[in-house]
């Protein structure tokens, strides 16, 4: 009987039921989508790392490449048979949409077990068996994964034109690789496997290796071998354990992924409020039914079970829909997540969403758990109903009103506790997010009290000026504060989240725009063509010389970027030869520009970016020890500059210092300063002429700035999308919950209609009531939104990325938020008003 009563109730109130399900579904969908996208991106990275490095335990590398004599020593002197020489580089196809490839140079005879991903092109039905003799002996030959070749329409024997380090090459495909397993298939996609000699020649690395992979057993003999290996390494070379390397890369993106997860949990939190809202509402609405049931002998436990099982039905259906939605959503979020990782961290090719059972299970448990948690309070509410069939709802309201102060107190306490958490000096992001959610929850507890105060204040202040409509609508809100308060809190939370994230993104964007204006000092920037994925292309020095001799060119800054492996992970190093004018472009957070310049230019000091300083806890006056070609060297730190180009941070060193320590003459980019009065466009044309067929990007200051901002927007597109999703859920929430409230008031409105309220007045009354609730939610959302923005900017982002941002608050955004709440609320009133105005009061009044 209980189950039937429950079922009938749910069926008779599809709005509430639907809203709860929607709340769960949307929340779960966003969480699942983000989790799947995160997991897929990470898995893609791990796969490519694992499949290419094989089972190696250690890697030997050196800044600027490892002398191949190290490998000779390992093999000839130390008999380190489990060593594998590797050369890696990038190539961009000339045709094939400029697709980028990884060049992987191996010696297949060195340590065959080290290449578990390579498989012989053994299938004799496939055209052209692999010609391994050609692979070995002919320059410019390589192997492609069969799947890659097929996708590109290439066959064994075909040639492909590629550009490597600015030079054109033709690589003949002498065989196709069959992947042995999924790992190989993913890892080898878009990889050109060549003989090591071929790779050295293509990448202009004769005499050098990218790294040597080692398999060293974890025992005494292994440790001894490691020591002997270390003893033969030249200055600048180092052995790192493969674990360290993979971990460092994983840690890099951890903050980013955690941020996305937190944002997705925000969506779930809003979903929880919607569930809470409609469950509470359903309990309050059934007070008399529950009282009756209790009167005929139904126990509290049975009542609790009834409500919980309703919640469970909602949870199951909602979670089921949510997971399906989440998978669909995840497909589209995946490339956004991957793009951000590519822009901010490292290249990772993510092709497909991996439906990790772990993510799905997590989403399921979160959905069901969140629903049940949200239902706890309504359950408590239901079991306290006294077994009396005449218990009125007003009694329930009175009880609720009595509880308001207590809730407000605990809310305030929770907020203070959370704020205290934020003050703990730590880099722990989880703690920050816990505080963030704590503040939101505390705020939600405060809302009913604030609404009560606000409305009473409004009534007191306005006196009679509001007219009957104002009085009735405002009283209606306080009269059923139990449900309206909860709804308003839910709406406020939803809106505040969008406000907070919105302000955070806007602040960061403005900060970056200003930073770009300040730091881009040269008039024209020249860099090798931006072929996707090519990380360190270089410019032809002869060409640079010709450019420097143009009459309009006053001076140049020369830069080159490299990555150095250190025991703490990799460090991006940017070597610049820059005039003082250009150096001023670095806005110092710590240090004084002139002093820093003197140390930088004359005493081989470095300047480090803010995120680098933050992550490594370094300051001006400290020193930084980096592995160089001459062995580890300790550089003084002359300044800490603002930089938003990398979240891992970067170290900048004078070019002459760099050459002295790393023997690297490569030129990565140019900044050209023009004579006063020069015509920028004319010079750009001249530069293009000089470059001839060389694919260069020649951009004016303004073009580069715009391009940078485009990249910024691309990087944060995922955050914007999440924000939009949150807004959508909030909107649906406001619309749904207010509509349900009004529909449930049908009888009350029918009475009003019966005693003479015209349809037009009814429209006004409903509109005023929902509008007022929307307005209150919108207004309340602002302080919380600002607080969230501050936490995101000052705590979360700083701990995640190490960036200092200037806070920008766009009043339009705040007004938009209120307007948005108001519009959603007003829209919510339309259907109930329409329905009630059309229905005859008598019909509506008829007892059920």
């Amino acid at each position: 009987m209980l189950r039937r009563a429950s079922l009938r109730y749910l069926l008779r109130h599809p709005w509430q039921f639907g809203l709860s399900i929607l709340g769960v579904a949307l929340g779960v969908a966003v969480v699942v989508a983000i989790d799947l996208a995160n997991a897929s991106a990470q898995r893609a990275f791990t796969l490519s790392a694992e499949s290419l490095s094989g089972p190696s335990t250690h890697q030997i590398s050196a800044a600027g490449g490892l002398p191949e004599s190290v490998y000779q020593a390992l093999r000839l002197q130390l008999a380190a048979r489990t060593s594998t020489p590797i050369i890696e580089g990038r190539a961009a196809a000339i045709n094939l949409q400029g697709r980028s490839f990884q060049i992987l140079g191996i010696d297949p005879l060195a340590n065959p077990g080290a290449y578990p991903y390579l498989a012989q092109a053994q299938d004799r039905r496939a055209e052209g068996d692999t010609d391994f003799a050609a692979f070995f002996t002919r320059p410019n030959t390589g192997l492609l994964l069969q799947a890659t070749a097929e996708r590109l329409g290439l066959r064994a024997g075909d040639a492909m034109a590629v550009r490597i380090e600015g030079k054109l090459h033709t690589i003949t495909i002498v065989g196709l690789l069959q992947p042995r397993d999924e790992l190989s298939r993913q890892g080898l996609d878009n990889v050109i496997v060549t003989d090591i000699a071929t790779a050295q020649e293509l990448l202009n690395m004769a005499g050098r290796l990218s790294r040597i992979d080692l398999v060293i057993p974890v025992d005494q003999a292994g440790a001894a071998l490691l020591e002997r290996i270390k003893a033969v390494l030249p200055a600048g070379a180092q052995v790192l354990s493969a674990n360290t390397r993979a971990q460092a890369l994983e840690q890099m993106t951890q903050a980013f992924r955690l941020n996305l997860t937190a944002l997705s949990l925000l969506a779930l939190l809003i979903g929880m409020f919607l569930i809470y809202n409609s469950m509470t509402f359903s309990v309050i609405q059934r007070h008399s039914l529950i009282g009756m049931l209790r009167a005929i002998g139904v126990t509290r436990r049975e009542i609790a079970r009834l409500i919980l099982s309703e919640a469970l039905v909602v949870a199951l259906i909602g979670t089921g829909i949510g997971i399906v939605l989440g998978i669909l959503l995840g497909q589209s979020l995946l490339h956004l997540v991957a793009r951000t990782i590519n822009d901010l961290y490292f290249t990772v090719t993510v092709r497909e969403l991996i439906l990790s059972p772990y993510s799905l299970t997590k989403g399921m448990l979160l959905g069901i758990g969140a629903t049940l948690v949200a239902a706890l309070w309504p359950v408590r509410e239901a079991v306290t109903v006294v077994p009396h069939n005449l218990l009125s709802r007003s009694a329930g309201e009175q009880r609720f009103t009595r509880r308001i102060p207590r809730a407000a107190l605990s809310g305030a306490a929770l907020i203070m506790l959370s704020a205290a958490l934020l003050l703990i000096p730590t880099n722990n992001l989880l703690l920050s997010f816990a505080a963030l959610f704590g503040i939101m929850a505390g705020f939600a507890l405060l809302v009913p009290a604030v609404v009560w105060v606000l409305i009473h204040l409004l009534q007191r202040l306005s006196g009679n000026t509001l007219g009957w409509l104002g009085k009735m609508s405002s009283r209606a809100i306080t009269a059923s504060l139990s449900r309206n308060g909860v709804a308003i809190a839910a709406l406020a939370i939803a809106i505040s989240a969008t406000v907070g994230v919105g302000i955070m993104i806007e602040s960061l964007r403005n900060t970056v725009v200003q930073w770009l204006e300040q730091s881009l000092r040269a008039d024209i920037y020249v860099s090798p063509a931006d072929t996707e994925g090519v990380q360190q292309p270089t410019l032809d020095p002869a060409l640079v010389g010709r450019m420097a001799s143009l009459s309009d060119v006053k001076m140049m800054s020369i830069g080159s970027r490299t990555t150095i492996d250190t025991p703490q992970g990799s460090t991006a190093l940017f070597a610049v030869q820059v005039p003082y004018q250009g150096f001023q472009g670095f806005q110092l957070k710590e240090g004084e520009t002139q002093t820093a310049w003197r140390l930088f230019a004359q005493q081989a000091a470095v300047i480090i970016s803010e995120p680098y300083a933050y992550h490594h806890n370094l300051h001006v006056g400290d020193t930084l020890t980096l592995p160089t070609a001459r062995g580890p060297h300790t550089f003084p730190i002359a300044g800490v500059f603002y930089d938003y180009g990398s979240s891992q941070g970067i170290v900048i060193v004078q070019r002459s210092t760099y050459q002295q320590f790393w023997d690297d003459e490569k030129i990565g980019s140019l900044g050209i300063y023009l004579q006063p009065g020069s015509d920028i466009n004319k010079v750009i044309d001249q530069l293009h002429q000089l470059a001839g067929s060389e694919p260069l990007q020649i951009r004016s200051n303004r073009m580069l700035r715009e391009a940078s901002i485009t990249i910024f927007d691309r990087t944060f597109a995922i955050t914007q999308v999440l924000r939009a999703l949150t807004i959508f859920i909030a909107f649906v929430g406001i619309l749904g919950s207010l509509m349900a409230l009004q529909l449930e008031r049908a009888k009350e409105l029918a009475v009003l209609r019966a005693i003479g309220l015209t349809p037009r007045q009814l429209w006004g009354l409903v509109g005023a009531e929902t509008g007022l609730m929307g307005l209150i939610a919108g207004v309340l959302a602002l302080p919380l939104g600002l607080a969230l923005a501050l936490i995101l900017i000052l705590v979360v982002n700083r701990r995640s990325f190490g960036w200092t941002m200037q806070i920008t608050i766009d009043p339009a955004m705040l007004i938009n938020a209120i307007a948005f709440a108001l519009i959603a609320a007003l829209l919510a009133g339309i259907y109930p008003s329409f329905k009630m105005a059309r229905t005859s009061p008598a019909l509506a009044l008829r007892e059920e």
Partner: protein
Amino acid sequence: MQHLLKWGMLILFALALVALSVYLSNPSGTTSRQTGIKLSDVLGDINIEGYTRAFEPREFSFPADHGLHPGYKHEWWYFTGNLATPQGRHFGFQLTFFRIALAPHSKARDSAWATNQIYMAHFTLTDVENKKFYNVERFSRAGLGLADATAQPFKVWLEDWSAAGQGAQTFPLHLRAANNDIAIDLHLDALKPVVLQGDKGLSQKSGEPGNASYYYSLTRLGTTGTVRVGEKTFPVSGLSWMDREWSTSALSKEQAGWDWFSLQLSDGRDVMFYRLRRKDGQPDPHSAGALVAPDGTKKSLSLQGVQIASAGEWRSPHSGIRYPVRWRLRIPSEKLDLQITPYLADQELNVSVRYWEGAVRIEGTTDGKPIKGDGYVEMTGYN
């Protein structure tokens, strides 16, 4: 000149070995695998155009000819020997370096790794007392000094395995090889001069001109040094044998394999004989050998002059292949009647292509008087 079939094997390697190693030796990397490539498939594909071939006898010149002959497709340096500790504990060893050209000519290239030559080496040790046979195979490219051969000073090496002369002298040779469990460190001195096999060093493989190799041996090398098994190192002495051969052409289609004998007798004589087996089970008429007198003079042996019979079979637990294990070899013209018994039945090399090559004990009579000795026997092409 043992190793006719080895030509085929090496040709096979030339194409398949990169394939093989790339084709994923299992992670442990040592056990051999079915390659999935048939010998006949590869032989049919072989392109020997551009390589030098052996058509007629040539003038040998030492020490230059101890070194490389890169125009030929294959070349090897083959060392085998029987050694014993002062207490009489017996060891056999094999250390072989194979050179294989993947292209007839090398091009000048920027990378020191660039090469048209690759090397393969086999190292075995027979521990008679513990009845244990160790065998290891290695590959390397020729580039970057990882593997190569030079005539003056003489050295052939694959990474840390090497055979090297000292200073300008080829002999005494210093042999060094080590792998996890085993190592040898031996000095080999020539007790007899170089013997040119076949027709003044031209060893004809079949009727077709050019299907031949250049082949010489040092049949008796006095050997001293150390052998390591596990943690223990033993001082040893004994006799070793060196074979050198280079060629280009392929194995004839009718030939299935061979049995090769290198025997060092207690009266100072050495015998080399290879019996080619045809697929139809008959011995091939190109089977040949030589008997080297204590003073180094050579007498050629032909199929008619040597009678070989086996008594018993041994079935390899590794491959299931059955090999003959005891031989009776008679050379009536020399009044030699020899019983040849492996020191250990299991001396099968589990490498890219399996074969049996092991230390053997010789007992018999010459002209009715007892004679004994040690040697090595190689058996290929069994199934």
